[in-house]
């Protein structure tokens, strides 16, 4: 179908975008890559009065690694994320998003603000304990990954706030595994495992309204391999723990039991990848291409 009518505002800078959203009084939406928003409009599931196009706002597409953190502007496209080598986990995850024609337009900030619980980048942000920068009428604020995702397709952003940048801490070791019915689809279940020092974070996508952090913040010690190598037995125990920890629902893509089984297997694969990190040089072989 064709999109419903809207008025279009091409923002010149972040303050202009915030002002345009504030003027729209809750009926405005940011238009970035448009790869999620435009289908929603075409299917008439939303009828915003105003689209605020941020694609030409200068300075929002910068990408730089500093002190173990990848700092990325909200407008960095998935193709650029997949091509950079400063944060190999986010590069691998971005390669699983859609297809080239989607990745060339879709943006990091858009994916995080859209907050699809089965999308790759929200799970990566949470696994890396990252944060986003948000600009609004009252100034700017920093929202960490645990606070950003409120529910399925719901973020902490207010109607007049714009996500401007992302901090993604670079893990010492990582693993990523996803199962989708066809390449380019959203995950039925995806698992991101990231180790920072001796702390291990395992996040499961597709099993709840938000990316699910296994064990929650408090129980991370239980996942801690104690700094030693992660052997097959430990990987299996952690996969058991992940499968026990999730509470998925059934839908047409898979039953709750199937998702639990996938959680086990994807966790096992992601952690096996992570455990191999010590043996491999930087980003080499385990960047398995989605097919």
């Amino acid at each position, binding site marked *: 179908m064709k999109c419903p009518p809207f008025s279009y505002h*091409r923002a010149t800078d972040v303050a202009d975008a915030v002002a345009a959203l504030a003027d729209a009084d809750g009926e405005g939406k940011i238009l970035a890559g*448009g790869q999620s928003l*435009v289908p929603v409009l*075409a299917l008439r599931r939303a009828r915003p009065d105003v*689209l605020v*196009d941020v694609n030409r706002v200068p300075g929002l597409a910068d990408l730089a690694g500093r002190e173990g953190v990848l700092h990325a502007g909200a407008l960095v496209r998935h193709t650029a994320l997949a091509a950079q080598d400063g944060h190999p986990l986010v590069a691998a995850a971005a390669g699983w998003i859609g297809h080239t*024609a989607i990745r060339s*337009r879709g943006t990091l900030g858009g994916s995080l603000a859209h907050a699809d619980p089965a999308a790759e980048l929200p799970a990566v942000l949470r696994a890396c304990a990252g944060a986003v920068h948000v600009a609004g009428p009252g100034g700017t604020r920093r929202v960490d990954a645990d606070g950003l995702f409120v529910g399925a397709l719901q973020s902490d952003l207010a109607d007049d706030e714009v996500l401007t940048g992302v901090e993604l801490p670079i893990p010492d070791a990582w693993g990523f595994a996803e199962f989708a019915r066809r390449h380019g689809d959203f995950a039925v279940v995806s698992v991101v495992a990231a180790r920072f020092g001796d702390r291990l974070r395992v996040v499961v996508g597709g099993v709840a309204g938000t990316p699910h952090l296994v064990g929650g913040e408090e129980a991370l010690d239980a996942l801690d391999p104690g700094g030693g190598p992660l052997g097959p037995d430990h990987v299996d125990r952690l996969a058991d723990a992940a499968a026990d920890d999730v509470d998925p629902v059934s839908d047409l893509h898979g039953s709750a039991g199937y998702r639990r089984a996938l959680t086990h297997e994807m966790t096992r694969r992601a952690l096996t990848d992570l455990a191999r990190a010590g043996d491999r040089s930087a980003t080499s072989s385990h960047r398995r291409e*989605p*097919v």
Partner: protein
Amino acid sequence: MRITLTVNGTRHRLDVEPRRTLADALREDLGLTGTHLGCEHGVCGACTVLVDAEPARACLMFAVQADGSTVRTVEGLAAPDGTLDPLQEAFSTCHGLQCGACTPGMLMTATHLLEVEPAPDRERIRAEMAGHICRCTGYMGIVDAVESAARAVRAPS
């Protein structure tokens, strides 16, 4: 809203409603009906064109967003005298199409692939073409066509 688009080397000035997609602007305003619309929500790949040399779904981009951009569509592939380009020739030879609904998008994605990777293997070709749905061919002829065109482009006869 007034915009400028350069399509297949020709500059056009258009006045479009903001909700006009790039695909509709190409088809309805410029009469370039080679770009096909299938699903109109980004899934089928039929409307794929190259915007500033990158493949994009023309149904997921508003024409106003392409203001000032350079767009390549399927009409730009063949030579002015009608001689097919190597990919078009290969799609025909390898039976990479039947009804042709999906073909314009397939050709533009394959054009981009061969521009950035002149010698892709079959797995790479399959991965790149996976963003397109074809209900006729079963895809084997399409993969054969891209592989065969890549060979033809590398070693012109």
